[in-house]
């Protein structure tokens, strides 16, 4: 295990990175999780600063999706701590629900509410969680749908939209909660190839606007273009953490070299 020495990556050893101005927003310390026998997250330390775009890559089964889902406790962890804006993730209940409202999530399979229109999908959270007036929520939602380019579909049901359109609506739904951070769990993996870019364009725009983002993806182009930092995971461990140029051009671990060799040669 030549590279196990770098598993304990913390905020302090963001080696070779431009010092990030934002304060720590999402902090994972010593996080462990098992699925039965499988140790999917092994002593994970990761700090995401305000305004930072962290792209998590790695082979399938490396635990990157689990890591992403642990941040808003869709996957409870066995031990270690996760704090959001200085606040520890509470147990299941009202407090957790409040905290989740501050963490946007975009899923691989979109997960738009199938029985609600596009507009209702975006307004549901603001109205029911943030107690916004329906009229104000509708204005907010239409603005966001305009921004992601699907405002003309507002009255349709999710099943009537293409995958790319649905995923852009899902991003608008997350934005409508005015979250502190948005988690993207392989947002383009279920899309037809020609629809990948329309979603990535929205994400790049968000990154440029300073949204804090944790993005699990296989889109290396996006990582190069928009990431402040690339985190490489393998077998439940964070193996490397570096700015994209350093990571892609000079990976230090064998596992990262092996992974990049497999995906970049095609």
């Amino acid at each position, binding site marked *: 295990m030549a590279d196990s020495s770098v598993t304990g990556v913390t905020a302090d050893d963001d080696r070779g990175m431009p010092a990030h101005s934002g304060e720590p927003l999402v902090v994972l310390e010593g996080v462990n999780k098992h699925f039965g026998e499988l140790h999917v997250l092994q002593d994970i330390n990761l700090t995401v600063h305000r305004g930072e775009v962290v792209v998590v890559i790695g082979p399938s089964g490396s635990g990157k999706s689990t890591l992403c889902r642990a941040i808003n406790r869709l996957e409870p962890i066995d031990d270690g701590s996760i704090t959001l804006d200085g606040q520890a993730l509470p147990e299941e209940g009202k407090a957790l629900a409040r905290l989740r409202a501050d963490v946007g999530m975009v899923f691989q399979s979109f997960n738009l509410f199938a029985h609600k229109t596009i507009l209702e999908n975006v307004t549901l959270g603001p109205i029911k*969680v943030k107690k916004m007036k329906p009229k104000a929520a509708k204005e907010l939602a239409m603005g966001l749908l305009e921004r992601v380019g699907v405002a003309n579909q507002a009255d349709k049901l999710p099943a009537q939209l293409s995958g790319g359109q649905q995923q852009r609506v899902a991003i608008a739904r997350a934005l409508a909660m005015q979250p502190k951070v948005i988690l993207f769990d392989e947002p383009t993996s279920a899309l037809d190839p020609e629809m990948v870019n329309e979603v990535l364009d929205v994400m790049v725009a968000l990154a440029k606007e300073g949204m804090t983002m944790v993005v699990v993806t296989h889109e290396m182009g996006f990582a190069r273009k928009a990431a402040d930092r690339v985190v490489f995971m393998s077998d439940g461990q964070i193996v490397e953490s570096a700015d994209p140029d350093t990571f892609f051009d000079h990976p230090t671990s064998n596992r990262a070299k092996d992974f990049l060799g497999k995906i970049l040669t095609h």
Partner: protein
Amino acid sequence: MSDFLEVLSNYDILGAYWINLSLTFFAAIFSLIIGTILAMMRIAPVSSLRFAGTTYVTLVRNTPLTIIVVFAVLVLWPVLGVQFSETFSINFFWLAVVALSVYHASFMCEALRSGINTVPLGQAEAARAIGLPFLSAARLVILPQAFRGAVAPLGNTLIALVKNTTVAAAASVPEVSILMKEMLDQNGNYVLPIFLTIAAGFVIIVIPVGLAVTYLSQRLAVSR
């Protein structure tokens, strides 16, 4: 034939069917309410609620309806003192409604749970991710889709309920099967026609329910 029709005209058959329909109406509403609560308990994040829901369903679903009706009449009322009215007939009617509701709630629960299983897990995750607590997520996202996916099994439970209202005879509710027995006792020469008449009545009630269920289950299906 005219003799037989004259026999029929001596009995208030429609009135008796009306009692079956009344039992169905109230028991359908209450069993659906109880069944929905049970289904939510069975998917709740609290393990004691899940256990209570599962226990209820296992216990009640595996007890014969007749025994539950007799329990209502011989235990619930005289021993436990549950009384709905001073008037015997009204009291027995509501005791029968309670028994039918309690029994069919377990089937409504399981029908609804099959509907919940048609809702992808991602829907619940998305609801939780925007900060909806469990009850709001259930009410706004899961149940509306679950009901639409459970129209057929809920309809089957309703059809079973229509026919099971005849068990209210065990609580001396003067519904149609009691009337049929009375008619048979008094008209031994018309046993088969009387039986067929009563059976046809149920067919006439149930067929439209079945057609409506089929229509609605297609009409309301959630497109994904």
